């Protein structure tokens, strides 16, 4: 029992493993084959037996039939001879032959023998009847004595003298099969009469029943497959056979039982006195076997085809099922991968789909269970978390949290409450909140709050500011809000108690701070969004007078717009207000969330005056600086002036020489004169420029094109550039760049920068000197860059480049760049230097683009900003 168990345990997984690995179609084929084989083997057993049985019966019938047929033919042969006997006996020739004869019993005679020739009484009928002539035809008298005899062969006649009368039938035909001697004969007799109807005796025909006779009787039958023989029933011995070689006469029947199938039939009509012959039909066993084998093979083939068809159909059906299963599996895999995020369950290796399906379902179920477990776990974790959170909230809350039951007894008391009220949680729980923590006079208010919170349910929470009582008896202000928790059978109140001591103090503080504004010596005002003056301190009286407004009234419209602007942008706004010489700076500070603008004013009259003076000083300084630049350039200008003057002298001398020599053609002379005029104009233009550069002009701003300005400066410096043998390359913006500038000042800056570049380039070989001026616009600014490829500026100098009295030049004042910076700053621009030592330096200047082209220069005072 145990061994069997073990066996089962060890075999089962092996079997399953094998099954798992085999794909369904293979199993289908295997099962089909096994089933087919089983069915076939069982059927073969049963059916073979059945077939044998049927075949045996059939064979028996067949053999019987054949035996009957053979017998019938044999009997017909016998009957034919009997009929012939009758015919011969009753033939006219015989009766006529007998007419004259008379046979007596006592007669002594020798039977007349016809040998080799036919007697008269014997008509020639044998050839016609296809019967072989009988061996012996006898004519006997009424007593059986042979009177005449016809012998067809040479053999001695078996009956020579007499025929036993018991063999003869007096009334008619009689046929017998008799042993005569060793041989068997058909003895057929018929009474004979003469012409007058007198009975004369008998005609006896004797035919040997030998193989020839049998063969003749079986004419047309296949002798190979069957043989016939006459058997002596007494001795069970073959007397005559159709094939004497195969079945020797005289042999015992039992000798042939192994070889042949025998059928014995009696011949009752022809039984003689001495013999009782049997007609035997022999069919060789071999033939029967052969036939039976043929039938069996045929049958088996049929069964085999049937089994094959069965296997194929069975396999086909299972294959189709497995294909379908495969599809289902694939679909499920795909579904599981997409919808459930289950990784490939590992069916790719193939195998038995049914088992795979089972595996998959197991896997899927497991996953679902796992997912459920996971959810459960998560849910529990979330529960625990929320619980912990609640506790943590209670613990960490800065406000005191107290939970009361419906009667107002404390049932929960958090650490903040412990700290605030100075009472341990254990001690607090169970006490009445109102009695313990509220002074007597606030208790009714608290009670009202509780009631109200019950009526108001959840929505607006009851909220109240009260005085609460510490255990040591000190009172402190708190704000209490109540949340009602209504359960089915119980009602709780959660109190959030917020200590507002500090808030109260802050309120006090703010109230005292509010007095600051009113005490300020500078005007401070608050204006609402629609320009209404909300507040104005006492110092703002001059402003209010100028506006002709009082608190509660509106500001004049222009100032109201500024208020709206400051509120709109959210950026503070600065404005100046000149009240009969008194200049105020007004700062509009928007407070957007309140919709107010605070205006802080300040008297800046004194500051303005100081600025004005400083600006004048600066302008003078600028001029001085310009003069110094001019001094540096004077030599160059003088040379430039020399050019037209020399040309004029040459033309004039040329003219006078021609006129003296009388060779002067009028047209040529006029051309020369024209040239003289042009050169004189050129000289005067140079002088004009010189004056413009040197002359002191008040700062005037006008809108002009920065590109034009650059070109102008270049023309001033033409002499210097040719002296240095370099060209100033201009890379100017394609369009005009409108800037609102003081022409002379900006030109001065540019000349300064270019002059610096010249100085820097002086040490360079002449062919390598490059100076480039570029202009452009960017982000609402115009920019100019003066770039040279001189030695550059050392990094330590870059920082202090624009400081006054800092110079790297021998004869320099160190004012050029400082003045330039002042000028550019006044124009709200920027100026800076960049340099890569050894590769040159670039000076950048930006100026704000003029906003609206063509606008006349506004009062320059407005653009001035103190530094």
């Amino acid at each position: 029992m145990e061994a069997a168990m073990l066996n089962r345990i060890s075999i089962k997984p092996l079997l399953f493993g094998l099954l798992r690995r085999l794909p369904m179609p293979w199993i289908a084929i295997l099962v089909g084959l096994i089933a087919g084989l089983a069915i076939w083997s069982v059927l073969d057993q049963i059916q073979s037996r059945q077939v044998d049985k049927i075949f045996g019966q059939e064979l028996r019938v067949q053999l019987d039939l054949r035996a009957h047929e053979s017998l019938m033919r044999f009997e017909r042969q016998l009957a034919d001879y009997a009929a012939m006997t009758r015919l011969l006996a009753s033939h006219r020739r015989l009766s006529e032959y007998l007419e004259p004869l008379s046979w007596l019993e006592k007669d002594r005679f020798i039977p007349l023998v016809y040998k080799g020739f036919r007697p008269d009484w014997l008509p020639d009928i044998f050839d016609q009847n296809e019967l072989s002539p009988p061996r012996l035809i006898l004519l006997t008298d009424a007593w059986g004595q042979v009177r005449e005899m016809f012998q067809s062969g040479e053999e001695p006649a078996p009956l020579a003298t007499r025929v036993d009368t018991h063999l003869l039938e007096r009334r008619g035909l009689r046929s017998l099969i008799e042993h005569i001697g060793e041989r068997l004969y058909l003895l057929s007799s018929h009474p004979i009469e003469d012409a007058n109807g007198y009975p004369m005796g008998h005609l006896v025909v004797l035919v040997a029943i030998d193989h020839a006779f049998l063969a003749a009787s079986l004419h047309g039958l296949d002798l190979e497959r069957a043989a016939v023989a006459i058997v002596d029933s007494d001795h069970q011995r073959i007397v005559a056979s159709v094939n004497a070689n195969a079945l020797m006469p005289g042999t015992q029947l039992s000798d042939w039982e192994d070889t042949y199938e025998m059928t014995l039939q009696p011949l009752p009509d022809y039984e003689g006195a001495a013999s009782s012959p049997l007609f035997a039909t022999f069919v060789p066993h071999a033939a029967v076997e052969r036939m039976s084998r043929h039938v069996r093979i045929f049958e088996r083939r049929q069964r085999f085809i049937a089994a094959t068809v069965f296997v194929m159909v069975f396999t086909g059906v299972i294959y189709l099922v497995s294909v379908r299963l495969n599809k289902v599996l694939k679909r499920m895999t795909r579904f599981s991968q997409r919808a459930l995020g289950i990784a490939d369950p590992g069916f790719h290796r193939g195998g038995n789909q049914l088992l795979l399906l089972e595996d998959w379902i197991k896997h899927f179920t497991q996953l679902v269970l796992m997912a459920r477990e996971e959810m459960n776990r998560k849910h529990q974790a979330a529960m625990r978390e929320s619980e912990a959170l609640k506790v943590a909230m209670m613990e960490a809350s800065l406000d005191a949290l107290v939970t009361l039951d419906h009667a107002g007894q404390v049932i929960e008391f958090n650490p903040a409450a412990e700290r605030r009220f100075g009472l341990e949680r254990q001690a607090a729980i169970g006490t009445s909140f109102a009695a313990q923590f509220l002074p007597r006079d606030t208790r009714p208010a608290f009670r009202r709050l509780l009631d109200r919170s019950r009526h108001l349910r959840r929505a607006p929470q009851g909220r109240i500011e009260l005085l609460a009582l510490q255990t040591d008896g000190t009172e402190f202000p708190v704000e209490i809000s109540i949340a009602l928790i209504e359960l089915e059978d119980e009602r709780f109140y959660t109190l959030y108690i917020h200590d507002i001591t500090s808030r109260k103090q802050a309120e006090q503080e703010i109230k005292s701070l509010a007095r600051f504004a009113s005490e300020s010596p500078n005007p401070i005002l608050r204006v609402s969004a629609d320009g209404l003056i909300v507040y104005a301190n006492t110092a703002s009286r001059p402003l209010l007078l100028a506006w002709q407004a009082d608190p509660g009234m509106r500001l004049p419209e222009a100032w109201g717009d500024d208020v709206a602007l400051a509120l709109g942008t959210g950026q503070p706004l600065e404005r100046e207000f000149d009240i009969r010489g008194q200049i105020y700076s007004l700062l509009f500070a928007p407070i957007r969330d309140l919709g107010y603008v605070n205006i802080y004013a300040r008297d800046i009259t004194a500051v303005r005056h100081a600025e004005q003076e400083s600006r004048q000083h600066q302008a003078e300084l600028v001029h001085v600086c310009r003069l110094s630049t001019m001094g540096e350039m004077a030599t160059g200008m003088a040379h430039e002036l020399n050019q037209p003057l020399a040309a004029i002298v040459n033309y004039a001398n040329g003219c006078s020489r021609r006129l003296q020599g009388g060779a002067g053609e009028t047209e040529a002379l006029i051309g020369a004169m024209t040239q003289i005029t042009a050169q004189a104009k050129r000289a005067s233009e140079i002088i004009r420029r010189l004056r413009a550069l040197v002359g002191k002009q008040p700062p005037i701003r006008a809108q002009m094109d920065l590109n034009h300005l650059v070109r102008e400066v270049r023309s001033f410096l033409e002499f210097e550039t040719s002296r240095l043998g370099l060209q100033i390359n201009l890379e100017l913006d394609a369009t005009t760049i409108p800037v609102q500038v003081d022409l002379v000042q900006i030109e001065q800056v540019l000349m300064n920068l270019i002059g610096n570049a010249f100085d820097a380039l002086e040490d360079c070989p002449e062919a390598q000197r490059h100076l480039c001026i570029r202009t452009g616009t960017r982000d609402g600014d115009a920019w100019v860059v003066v770039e040279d490829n001189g030695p550059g500026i050392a990094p330590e100098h870059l920082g202090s480049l624009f400081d006054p009295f800092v110079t790297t030049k021998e004869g320099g004042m160190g004012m050029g760049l400082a003045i330039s910076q002042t000028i550019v700053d006044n124009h709200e621009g920027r100026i800076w230097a960049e340099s890569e030592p050894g590769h040159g330096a670039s000076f950048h200047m930006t100026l704000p683009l003029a906003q609206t082209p063509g606008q006349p220069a506004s009062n320059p005072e407005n653009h001035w900003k103190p530094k």
Partner: protein
Amino acid sequence: MNTDATVFIVDDDQAMRTSLQWLIEATGLAVQTYESADAFLASYYPGRAGCLLLDVRMPGMSGLELQSHLKRQGYRLPVILITGHGDVAMAVKAMKAGALDFIEKPFHDEDLLRSIHYALAFDQKHRAHDLARTEIAGRIADLTPREHEVMALVTEGQSNKEIAATLGVSAKTVEAHRARVMEKMRAESLAELVRMALLVASETALS
């Protein structure tokens, strides 16, 4: 005076250029003007007679540079420099570099014209000298190597016998060579032959 002589003016200032042309043409001289040194170099070929009027300060190749360039090329064109006010240092530099004269702007027309005439005369004289030297050089080139050797030794002052000893030939042969040399060089006397040799030698030394 050579009538082919041309006054070449190189000045970047158009007014200066044309006014100078106007002035100089009034004296009947041919004038050609160029706005830069490069333009001048592009059209000038050696052998043209004349003088060069150069502005010292010019963009591109300056007057001084052009002058030294011409000298390097071996052109003997006389150069007059025109300088501006305060360019005296530069003028001195130019004179040291071989300029014939310099004139300071603004100048008197007489001074300029005198300077030009002097320059043209200088040029012509040099040109004639050069011509003679070229011819003698041509004659020397016609001599056979042996005749060349003989002439060299004769002009060194050696006697026929000394020459025969140096060359390893007979005095009679030297005599024949010497007669051939005198004939080929078209020298009337030994003194003339020596002068010719000196002229060519100085040329060789100069270049």
